[in-house]
């Protein structure tokens, strides 16, 4: 069932386009993430759904009702803010009870629901405290609990983990995901952190310059990016300039010819980009009819589970190779000549 449907919504400020006409549907129980750099229009899109920004065109449907002209308060949504937006003068209990009081629930039912949801977010002992007495992660969980408690048709989250440190952020990602799956929450989530988006989402909308660059599962965005922007934004990537030199073949700027995989038909002489993920590259020659390129090591760093090698292809293009570290592979020294190779089908052609 479709929970949220956007039909050609757009937002302009005079001649400036904050959001180009966008279509989108969020199905029940789906975790959909709006991902993109700042200024890409992801927050604008979220605010249009929440009703805090009025679109200059298009329609917003929630639960089968056109809510384009319905104020925030009557859209039946939940929202978690980066700043948590917990009421500082209320206790945690009062904060969570607030949306239930708005809905006129009896006192006893409110008490029971608040206790249940505090149990759910594993903070049953903080009911009597004020928000400032809790840590950032705890406040974030309370902010989520305050949404869950009144069962809104969709929960919007605007960079909810932006203020937390890395470790806690990763913990919270799993925690939010657990609750979302367990309760079947429909979630529209905004973040600029691609790892976060990959970890949590069922589908990701990658936004760029006010429009959706690609919509797909994390897998699709990573392995089948349809533009170099997507390839560059999601994960690490080597994007090599090349020209089409025949069916399945492209010529790199240094003259080497490699075999590639592509979806769209290529025309001879067309300029393209070749995507090579750092982890598909090997610092040795492998079989399987692999392509190979000669390069010079410029440096290597170990970042725990992986080793990153910074290489320079003959001709001057920089390439990153990432391998699993096993403690035994002798680190090549800067200046060493190496041959890199990859299985055919791992190199993907994107429009330049």
């Amino acid at each position, binding site marked *: 069932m479709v929970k949220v449907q956007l039909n050609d919504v757009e937002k302009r400020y005079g001649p400036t386009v904050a959001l180009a006409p966008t279509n989108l549907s969020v199905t029940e129980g789906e975790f959909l993430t709006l991902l993109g750099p700042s200024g890409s229009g992801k927050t604008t899109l979220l605010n249009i759904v929440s009703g*805090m920004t009025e679109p200059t065109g298009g329609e917003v449907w929630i639960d089968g009702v056109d809510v384009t002209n319905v*104020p*925030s*308060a009557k*859209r039946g949504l939940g*929202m978690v*803010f980066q700043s948590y937006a917990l009421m*500082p003068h209320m206790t945690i209990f009062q904060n969570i009870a607030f949306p239930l009081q*708005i809905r006129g629930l009896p006192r006893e039912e409110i008490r029971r629901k608040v206790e249940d949801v505090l149990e759910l977010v594993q903070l049953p002992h903080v009911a009597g405290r004020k928000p400032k007495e809790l840590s950032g992660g705890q406040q974030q969980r309370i902010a989520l609990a305050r949404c869950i408690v*009144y069962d809104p048709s969709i929960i919007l989250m605007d960079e909810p983990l932006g203020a937390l440190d890395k470790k806690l952020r990763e913990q919270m990602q799993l925690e939010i995901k657990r609750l979302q799956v367990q309760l079947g929450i429909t979630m529209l989530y905004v973040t600029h952190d691609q790892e976060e988006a990959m970890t949590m989402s069922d589908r990701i909308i990658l936004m760029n310059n006010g429009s959706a660059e690609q919509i797909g599962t994390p897998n699709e965005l990573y392995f089948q990016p349809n533009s170099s922007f997507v390839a560059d934004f999601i994960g690490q990537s080597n994007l090599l300039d090349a020209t089409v030199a025949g069916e399945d073949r492209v010529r790199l700027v240094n003259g080497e010819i490699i075999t590639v995989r592509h979806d769209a038909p290529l025309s001879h002489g067309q300029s393209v980009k070749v995507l090579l993920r750092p982890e598909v590259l090997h610092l040795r020659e492998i079989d399987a009819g692999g392509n190979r390129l000669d390069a010079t090591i410029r440096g290597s760093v170990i970042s725990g589970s992986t080793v990153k090698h910074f290489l320079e292809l003959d001709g001057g293009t920089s390439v990153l190779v990432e391998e699993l570290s096993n403690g035994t592979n002798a680190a090549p020294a800067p200046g060493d000549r190496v041959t890199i190779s990859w299985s055919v089908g791992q190199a993907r052609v994107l429009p330049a």
Partner: protein
Amino acid sequence: MTQRRFKTAYFVIPAVVFMIAVYALPLAGVALQSVTDADGGSWSLAGYRDIFSSTLFYKVAWSTFTISLLSTTVSLSLAFPLAYFLSKQRPKVRAVLMIFVLVPFWTSVLVKAFAFTILLGQSGIINDALAFFGLGPLPLLFNKAGVIVGMSHFLIPFMVFPILTSLMAQPPELRRAASIMGAGRLRIFFRITLPLCLPGIMTGTLLVLILSLGFFVVPALLGGRQDMMLSNLVDFYTRETLNWQAASTLAVILFSFAMIVAYTLARVPGGSSLLGGQDR
């Protein structure tokens, strides 16, 4: 940490010396004068005995109290909507409007008090306008009404600023969050905006109440004989009867009164910020 905090203490030395010289020492002198006999010789509580047995004192203290309370109430009820309105404006518009709030400070209280006699008098602008519609005249001058008008006019900015500050300090997400949860405007106002604004209201109320306790020019010029306030009585003792002991005693009583008001308000919910506490 503590040491570092006090490292810059010498920056306050000039201000402290100044305040000791022109405020603390004279005040101590006044306090001393109130507990010595008229010749300045031996200790004596005669001053207090005389004051507390004079019916004039009780009448004047009562009118001081009621006038202060009334003008504080009037200032609060006019200043809160004003501050609320200002808090909703764009910064540039607010800066311009703020100038109008500050206008009362541009003229001395004395000049304004005279100006009010023209506005409020029997044949003043207001009563002339009322007469044009066949109404009035209203007695607006040389009574409580005149005093309240004159005092509130001076006091409103002192109420507006702390309230405005605490309204603006509220993160807008709080209201947005409440709105998305389904709260209407009235509920947002009474459950969020107003409670979070209490420290500002308390600060403003305290400031205005204490300022009004010591008012002198306005009741002297715009009030009637019934509207004498404690400061006017101090003035009466020093200039008319040259009774310095009574004047000093009254001053000490007024001072203590103000301290009690400040302490009481600071104990009210939302008022602890007055004493540096964190209520929020």
